[in-house]
C-alpha cells in the first residue's frame, strides 16, 4: 500500500512539473515568443482564445506571474487549451488533437503490440537454442540498430520501396482521391499506406523486446524447477513455454505496459518522414508554424500518456510481483 501511494505521489509530482515546464519555458526564453504571435494574430483570434493565450504566455495581461500561473493551471484543469493559431486557424486545439490521435494509435499502437509479440517470441526461441545461429546474430545486430536514427531508416525504406521499386506508397495515410469511409477500398488503402511506417517502427523497436526476453529467459532456464521439469521428461515445448517463458515474461510485460505510454509520442520522426497525420506529425507542424497553443497541448498529452503508462506498469508490477510490495 505504501508503495502504491508513493507511486501515486510521484505521478502527481511529475505531472505538476510537466505543467510548470509548459508554463515556464516560453517565459524563460530570450524574447518572449508569444509576444510575436499575439502581435501577429491579434485581429484573427477570438477573444476567448486571446484570454487563454494570455494565461498561457503572459502577454498583454496585467496580472502578476502567480496569478497567471494559477489561471493557466485552471485552464488546463478544465481542458481549455485555446485555439490553434496557424495550423488550422481558429479551430479548437482539443479537436485538432482529437482528430490526430486515432491515426497514431492505429499505426504506432498496433505496431507496438506486434513488436512485443514477435520480439518476445524470438527472444524465447533464441534463449532456448542459446549459442545457436540466431542467438549469435542478435547482439551485434542490436548494437547496430540502436545507433541508426529512426527517420533515416524510414528514408532509406522510402528510397527502396517507394521511389526505386514503386511498390508501396509513402505519403500520408491514405490516397487523397479516396473519400474516407468504412469500405474495403478505403481500409485497404489505409493498410497499404501503413506498411512502410509500421515496418520502420517494427525493426527499430523489436530489438529491446528480443533482448529483454532472451536475457531473462536465460536466467530462468538455469533455475532448479526447469531442471526438474527436464528430469521428469516433459516435452521440450512445455518446458520452454510453461516453465521458462511464463516465469521470464514479467519484465517484458511491465515494459510493454510502459511502452504503450510512448505510443502517443513515440514515433514523431517516423510520422514526419511519412507525412502520416498523427500526433507526432501534428507536433512538428505546430512547431514549424509556431503554433504554440497546439504545441503545448501536444507536449502535455504526450507526457501524460507516458506518466499514466508508468503508473500502470508500476501498479502491475506491484500486483504481479509480491517482492516489490515487500520492498516498498
Amino acid at each position: 500500500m505504501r508503495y502504491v501511494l508513493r507511486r501515486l505521489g510521484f505521478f502527481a509530482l511529475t505531472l505538476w512539473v510537466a505543467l510548470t515546464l509548459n508554463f515556464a519555458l516560453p517565459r524563460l526564453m530570450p524574447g518572449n515568443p508569444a509576444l510575436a504571435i499575439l502581435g501577429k494574430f491579434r485581429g484573427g483570434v477570438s477573444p476567448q482564445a486571446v484570454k487563454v493565450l494570455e494565461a498561457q504566455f503572459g502577454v498583454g495581461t496585467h496580472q502578476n506571474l502567480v496569478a497567471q500561473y494559477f489561471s493557466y493551471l485552471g485552464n488546463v484543469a478544465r481542458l481549455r487549451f485555446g485555439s490553434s493559431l496557424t495550423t488550422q486557424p481558429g479551430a479548437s486545439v482539443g479537436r485538432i488533437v482529437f482528430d490526430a490521435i486515432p491515426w497514431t494509435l492505429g499505426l504506432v499502437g498496433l505496431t507496438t503490440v506486434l513488436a512485443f509479440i514477435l520480439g518476445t517470441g524470438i527472444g524465447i526461441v533464441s534463449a532456448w537454442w542459446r549459442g545457436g545461429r540466431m542467438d549469435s546474430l542478435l547482439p551485434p545486430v542490436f548494437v547496430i540498430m540502436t545507433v541508426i536514427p529512426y527517420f533515416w531508416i524510414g528514408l532509406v525504406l522510402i528510397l527502396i520501396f517507394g521511389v526505386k521499386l514503386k511498390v508501396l506508397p509513402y505519403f500520408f495515410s491514405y490516397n487523397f482521391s479516396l473519400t474516407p469511409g468504412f469500405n474495403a477500398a478505403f481500409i485497404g488503402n489505409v493498410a497499404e499506406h501503413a506498411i512502410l511506417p509500421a515496418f520502420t517502427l517494427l525493426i527499430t523497436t523489436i530489438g529491446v523486446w528480443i533482448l529483454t526476453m532472451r536475457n531473462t529467459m536465460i536466467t530462468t532456464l538455469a533455475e532448479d524447477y526447469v531442471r526438474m521439469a527436464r528430469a521428469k521428461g516433459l516435452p521440450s515445448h512445455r518446458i520452454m513455454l510453461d516453465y521458462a517463458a511464463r516465469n521470464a515474461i514479467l519484465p517484458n510485460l511491465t515494459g510493454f505496459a510502459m511502452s504503450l505510454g510512448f505510443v502517443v509520442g513515440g514515433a514523431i520522426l517516423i510520422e514526419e518522414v511519412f507525412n502520416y497525420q498523427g500526433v507526432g506529425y501534428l507536433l512538428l507542424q505546430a512547431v514549424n508554424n509556431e503554433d504554440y497553443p497546439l504545441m503545448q497541448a501536444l507536449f502535455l498529452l504526450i507526457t501524460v500518456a507516458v506518466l499514466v503508462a508508468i503508473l500502470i506498469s508500476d501498479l502491475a508490477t506491484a500486483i504481479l510481483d509480491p517482492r516489490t510490495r515487500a520492498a516498498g
Partner: protein
Amino acid sequence: MATLQTPPGASEAGAGAGAAPGGRAPAAAGLPLAGGGSIGGARSLRRMGRAITANRKATVGTALLVLFILVALFPGLIAHDDPQAQIYPRGLTPNAQHWLGTTSFGQDIFAQVIYGTRPVLLIAFGVGLLATIVAMLIGVAAAYLGGAWDGTLSVFTDVLLVIPLFPLLIIIGSYLHGAGTSVMIAVIALTGWSYTARQLRAQALSLRNRDFLNAAKVRGERPLYVICVEIIPTMTSLLVAAFLTNALYAVLFSSSLQFIGLGDPNVTSWGTMLYWAQNNEAFQTGLPLWIIVPGLCIVLLGAGFALLNYAFDEIGNPALRPAKSIRARTTRAGAVAAPTPRRRPRVKRTG
C-alpha cells in the same frame, strides 16, 4: 564474449542493480581501471592500449572515432571545396570532380559531409562531458549527503527521467529558433543527465559503508577530498560508459533536431544536410546520396561510440562475467538504453 552477450548499456543496468535495498554492491565496477589510474598515468594508458587492441569491438570503435576526429580536425586537407559555396552545377551525379555529386543548390556534397563532421563531434563530446559532469555532481552529492538532500535530488532526477526527452527538446528547440552548436550542447546536456545521475548515485551508495571510506572519514578528511579522491576514482569505468552513452545520444538527438529544422540551418552538419535534402526532395530528384551518406556517417559515428561502450563493459567489468553476476545483469536488461522510447530502469528506489 561468447558467454556474455549483453547490449551496450548493460553495465549501467548492472550497476543500477546495486541500488536495490540490501542489494549486492557491484563490487568490481570500475575498480580495475581506476586502480591503474591512481598508480600511474603511463601504465594505465598502456594497459588501456592493450585492452583496446585485444578486444575487436574496442579496436573497431576506436578506429572509427579516431577517423572521425581526424576528419573533424583537418577537414580542409580532405575536401578542397567550400561546403557552403553554391557555385557548382546543380544536382550533379557523382563524378571525378564531385565524388558524391552536388546538391540542388550547387554545393559539393562530399565537402559538406567532411566539414559537417566537426559540429557533430563537438556536440557529441560537449554533451558527453557536460551531461556526465552534471550527473556526477548531482548523483554523488545525493549519495554522499544523504537524508533530505538525497530525497530531493533523487526525486528531481527521477522526474526528469520520466518526462519524454525528445518532445521536450522539440519544444525547447522551437522556442529557441535555430539552436547553434553551443546552445544544442547546453540543451541536450541539461535535459539528459538524469539516467547517468541515477547510476552514479547507486554506485556511490554501494560504497557508503566500505572500509576505505570509513578510514578516510576517521582520518578526518574533508568531504570534498573524500568525494574527489576516494569516491570518484572508483567510478572511472562507469563514467567512461556514461560519457560514451551520452555522446551517442547527443549525436542521435542533435541530428534528429537538425533534421526537423530546429538546428541552425546555416551550420553545415549531417543533420542539417538531411534537413535540406529532405526539403528539396533529394530522392525524387535523383540525389539519393545527399541523404544516404550523411545518414551513414551518423550511423558509423554512433557505432564507434556504441562499440567502445560495449567493449568497455567487457574490459572494465570482468567480475560481471561469472554466471552469478550474469543473473544480476540480465534480469535488469529491460533497462537497456534505447534511443527512444526511453525506458526507465527497473530498479527499486531506496527512497
